[in-house]
């Protein structure tokens, strides 16, 4: 993946507006968080291949880390802490946030076809 280019990502986000799309959304601090630091809690959330339709989409940020929000007819989806992006298989928009060690902390992915697995 490469550092987020806000213009390109915004353009790609808009290409999904009004279409039925598949979403992958996750955040995690890892299954070992409280094992390596007893003061920590393990937290994580994961949705894969939720089928949604959104009518607005926007990516916002300061050049280092970004937030992306999708407005649906009756609800919202957003992710915070995004740092990198990639257009995967020419059609799937992958966005993720990594920490300094390259570990994934958050991901929001949008595709017109289901994600594999």
């Amino acid at each position, binding site marked *: 993946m490469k550092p987020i280019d806000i213009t390109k990502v915004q353009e790609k986000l808009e290409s999904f507006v009004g279409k039925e799309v598949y979403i992958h959304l996750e955040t*995690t601090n890892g299954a070992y968080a409280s094992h390596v630091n007893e003061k920590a809690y393990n937290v994580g959330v994961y949705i894969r291949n939720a089928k949604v339709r959104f009518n607005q989409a926007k990516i916002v940020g300061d050049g280092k880390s970004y937030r992306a929000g999708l407005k649906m007819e009756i609800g919202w989806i957003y992710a915070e802490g995004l740092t*990198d992006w990639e257009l995967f298989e020419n059609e799937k928009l*992958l966005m993720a946030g990594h920490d300094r060690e*390259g570990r*994934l*902390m958050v991901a929001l992915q949008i595709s017109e076809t289901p994600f594999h*697995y």
Partner: protein
Amino acid sequence: MEKHVVVIYPHPDDESFGAAGTIAKFRDQGVPVTYLCGTLGEMGRNMGNPTFANRETLPEIRKQELINACNVLDMELRMLGYRDKTLEYEDRNEVAQHIKGILEELEPSLVITHYPEHAVHPDHNALGAAAIEAVRLIDEEKRPTVWAQAITNTQLEDLGVPQIINDVRDNFDKKMEAILCHQSQANGVIRSWNQSDDLSNDLKEEAMKRLSIESFYIWKF
């Protein structure tokens, strides 16, 4: 001497970090070893350092890393096809029956798996429990021995001293070679143990501190 050893863990790299030295010793004695790997570690957080994987490419990358590690350890590999982080939500009996079918075919004399509730990761606990249930369902005369591996920080207080304590410093080179097959994971995992700044740059040295003993509890049925 063992007739056939079956190792049952959920993630590509559990075999290398947890039991590579033990596996290498069995292979040196000519004992066949088969690894039943539960998932492809699809939900791993380590994407390489610097990152070279993403959430979508990680499963295939880890599958290849797993194949490479099994080649280094010269053991047969079977992938069970579950998904990372979901094993505890699967039907325990279904998973146990799945494993039992494979054990009946391979007829091992020894099964190595995680110690349920003492193996930190929910997948370790769930697959360990299913594997032990699978062995329990086998007729007593044919039932293999189970070595259960605990990895909690409190295992000595909770479970006492393990019956099997393998010092694997003799074949640590082999173990390290297997660990390093897991290119996307090895660096991040080893660095996560020591978050202080004085971490040695020598991954092998860091790994030696933690991984030169492989210990197991003999499961009582």
